[in-house]
């Protein structure tokens, strides 16, 4: 690849079957930008339909994009693409991790790493710039992520970034993670590395990402974003509490900093204070998320808020909680969001205060996080706890577990709300011990194996979104049909925050509607929360925009938990963000003039390729009835209320079919089946994809 800014120009390919290590030119994938785009293209071109996740033929791609390593804010995301074992069709999916792995990969000179084949013995991949080798991993095979990371770091050096699997990944537990920095996890693909006997990838990069523009231009753009556009985590742009500088406040905001709230576990406690827009140096204090995730008691244990390379937001809580040692765990714990709450979801009877008043929420979450982070278990976005709850509450566990196994489980701890229960639970999952461990297979598989009833799938208590076995994740509760459409389109929980960041920004509905009119053509693109209206074309445009921006971010690679910058905290801007900011950064960094429209087209290309991959793997074009389906609770919740009346988020069956039709139309897909048409594939430059689908008789 001719040297341009942003991309390193090289992709590393590692064949674990024959040990061959080779280099490819990134130019082949330029239309797909990077990260997710590269991953999908490799999967479509190289992995035959019908391949299963743990087959030797499956591949796994670690990808970054041209903005990663450039210094663009919130840009250190690694996109991992492979077949997903917890999906019933083992359809393609992405898992993502923050940390510093992606930036280090770029500094070492690689835009992506394609791993193929399978090793006959445990290995780890050592990358020091262009020196690449496979190393014996027998000394760390069987170890957890924490020890494995430390052992490998002792060989390659502490400055390396190491992505590893734990015992769950080694044992090919479907619900397992790949993790770098010992707490930045990508859920779902740990077992794929395990099936290839690849314990870890360790990278030391000493290079830099070439920036085409003069550095002052980039600094200027950075400063603009930092002073005028960026808010707190999830791009929340109003503080949680009333503050003199702020016109609005919102109790759900992740802009938690305020006077009197401290990083209380620091050697000298640091007050987060008030951090109005304009002061770049204080952006990192805004998201004091430890108290949001773990409760007020966490304040005094919070050493600092951490996060990813090149991210000013700091959403990762880093705590020292000495009580953890009583469970045989390190007192140092770090995570965020569902990384804390998901593992604790298994405590279905709740957690009681353990060491001090008000610590119940924190103790369950940090014990769960330490265990799952070390074993490398994935919570399926919290669904493992719901799967377990159903089996326990309905008596299924008593029936399916051998008596001896059932009696060996410390149910007394579960009933007493003692998080020590999690030590036993997650060990069984990670090591595939006994029948209980099948909870690690994932929702679809365990529901088949243990014959879960309709009340599990369709009941509101469990939040199972799709018959394919994934949960709601900013679905109909987030923007009515917009969130519902987004949640139907992927092969796991939708990891799309484009819409949710906007809806949850904390701004009044009148301002949100004004912005919606400017960005998606009508104020009717959004509804008031829990006061919905029937489907309209602007909601379809909003849904499409949200998804293609999400795909763009996972390709550029930017953090979709922050981007896009639809809103701003600045009153003088009337809270308008800058939706062209991705294009502005990419233009400066690459030296090529790239418009917002160019990028949106690339996002559409990438998402349509995802759709083509799903059609190919499922062997049907009937996406409407085989894939884009919601469980009944979405329509039947609140039985005493009608859809589109205040106070309910229920959807209407006929209206959702209209919504799908409008969405397919916006995407240029077949309006009957929801499969990409030949014309659209060609329009998006995917002629080869059209040809292959045609040969498989999978074009509408």
């Amino acid at each position, binding site marked *: 690849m001719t040297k341009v800014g942003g991309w390193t120009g090289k992709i590393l390919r590692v064949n674990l079957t024959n040990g061959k290590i080779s280099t490819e030119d990134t130019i082949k994938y330029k239309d797909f930008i990077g990260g997710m785009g590269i991953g999908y293209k490799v999967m479509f071109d190289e992995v035959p339909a019908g391949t299963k996740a743990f087959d030797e033929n499956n591949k796994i791609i670690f990808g970054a994009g041209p903005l990663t390593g450039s210094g663009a804010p919130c840009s250190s995301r690694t996109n991992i693409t492979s077949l997903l074992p917890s999906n019933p069709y083992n359809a393609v999916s992405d898992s993502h991790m923050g940390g510093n792995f992606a930036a280090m990969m770029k500094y070492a000179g690689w835009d992506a790493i394609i791993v193929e084949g399978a090793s006959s013995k445990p290995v780890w991949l050592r990358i020091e710039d262009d020196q690449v080798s496979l190393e014996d991993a027998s000394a760390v095979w069987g170890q957890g992520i924490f020890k494995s990371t430390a052992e490998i770091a002792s060989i390659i050096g502490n400055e390396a970034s190491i992505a590893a699997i734990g015992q769950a990944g080694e044992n090919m537990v479907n619900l397992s993670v790949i993790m770098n920095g010992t707490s930045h996890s990508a859920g779902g693909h740990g077992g794929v590395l395990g099936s290839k006997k690849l314990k870890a990838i360790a990278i030391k990069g000493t290079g830099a990402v070439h920036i085409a523009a003069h550095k002052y231009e980039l600094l200027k753009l950075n400063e603009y974003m930092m002073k005028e556009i960026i808010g707190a985590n999830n791009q929340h742009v109003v503080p949680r*509490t009333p503050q003199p500088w702020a*016109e609005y406040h919102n109790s759900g905001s992740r802009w938690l900093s305020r006077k009197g709230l401290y990083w209380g576990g620091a050697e000298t406690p640091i007050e987060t204070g008030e951090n109005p827009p304009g002061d770049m140096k204080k952006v990192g204090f805004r998201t004091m998320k430890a108290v949001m995730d773990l409760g007020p008691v966490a304040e005094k244990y919070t050493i600092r808020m951490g996060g990813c390379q090149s991210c000013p937001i700091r959403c990762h809580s880093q705590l020292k909680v000495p009580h953890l040692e009583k469970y045989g765990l390190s007192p140092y714990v770090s995570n965020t969001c569902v990384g804390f709450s998901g593992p604790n979801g298994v405590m279905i009877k709740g957690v009681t205060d353990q060491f001090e008043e008000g610590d119940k929420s924190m103790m369950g979450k940090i014990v769960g996080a330490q265990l799952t982070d070390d074993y490398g278990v994935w919570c399926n976005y919290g669904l493992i706890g719901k799967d377990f709850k159903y089996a326990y509450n309905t008596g299924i566990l008593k029936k399916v577990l051998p008596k001896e196994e059932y009696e060996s489980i410390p149910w007394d701890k579960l009933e007493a709300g003692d998080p020590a229960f999690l030590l036993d639970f997650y060990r069984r999952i990670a090591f595939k011990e006994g029948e209980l461990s099948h909870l690690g297979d994932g929702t679809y598989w365990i529901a088949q194996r243990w014959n879960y009833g309709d009340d599990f799938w369709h009941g509101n208590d469990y939040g199972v979104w799709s018959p394919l076995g994934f949960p709601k*994740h900013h679905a109909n*509760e987030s923007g009515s049909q917009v969130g519902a459409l987004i949640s139907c389109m992927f092969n796991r929980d939708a990891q799309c925050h484009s819409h949710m960041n906007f809806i949850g920004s904390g701004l009044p509905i009148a301002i949100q509607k004004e912005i919606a009119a400017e960005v998606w053509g009508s104020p009717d693109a959004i509804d008031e*929360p829990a006061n919905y209206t029937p489907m309209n074309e602007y909601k379809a445009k909003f849904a499409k925009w949200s998804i293609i921006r999400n795909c763009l971010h996972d390709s550029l690679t930017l953090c979709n938990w922050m981007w896009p910058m639809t809103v701003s905290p600045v009153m003088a801007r009337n809270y308008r963000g800058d939706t062209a900011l991705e294009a502005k950064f990419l233009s400066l960094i690459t030296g090529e003039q790239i418009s917002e429209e160019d990028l949106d087209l690339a996002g559409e290309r990438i998402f349509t390729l995802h759709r083509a991959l799903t059609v190919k793997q499922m062997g049907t074009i009937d996406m409407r009835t085989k894939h884009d389906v919601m469980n009944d609770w979405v329509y039947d919740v609140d039985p005493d209320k009608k859809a589109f009346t205040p106070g309910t988020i229920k959807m209407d069956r006929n209206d959702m079919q209209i919504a799908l039709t409008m969405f397919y139309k916006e995407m240029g897909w077949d309006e009957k089946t929801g499969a990409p048409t030949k014309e659209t594939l060609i329009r998006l430059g995917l002629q080869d994809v059209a040809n292959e689908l045609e040969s498989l008789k999978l074009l509408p």
Partner: protein
Amino acid sequence: MEKDKKDKLMVTADFVRKASMEVRLVKPDDFFAEPISMDQEQLLDILEQVFNNPDFADIKTIHGSESQYFYSSNHMTESYAKMLVRIEDKDLLKMVAETVRHESKIYPRPTDGKLFSTSPFSFNAEQLDDVVSQLKNQENYQDIQETRASNGAMYLYSNRFMTREHAIALTEWIEVLQHETS
């Protein structure tokens, strides 16, 4: 003479700005005391000039039930100044009701009872319970209604701007359900 006048304008404006930085409103009486020490006539004259001079466009005035107040929009928003005025008015029922009505109208959302325990309101639990119980008995505030989330948290809303069903659903979403996602 002209310079002296300009200095006075600047001193007056800076006095207001400093107070806003310290999260305080300025009352007319504050100008009569040290260090400004104006009389009523001087104050009226100075204020007229301040309000007509673009250099002091940040100096704003706001009215409470018994007094006029001044603040600088460089350091305080109008909405925050309104909160402070409601506190200065010392009419707790009106303060809670107006806050709740405002939130029910513009977001729309029910107001978390915990809001009133934070700055600048800083109620204790007893005060809030007392206010809520008094609201129920006052004709002027019959639109202010209470909802409870499944975790017991108390929220208030105005039925002028939200239906009860809507408020109940949003209370549960804000207090419980939104924390299940990230």
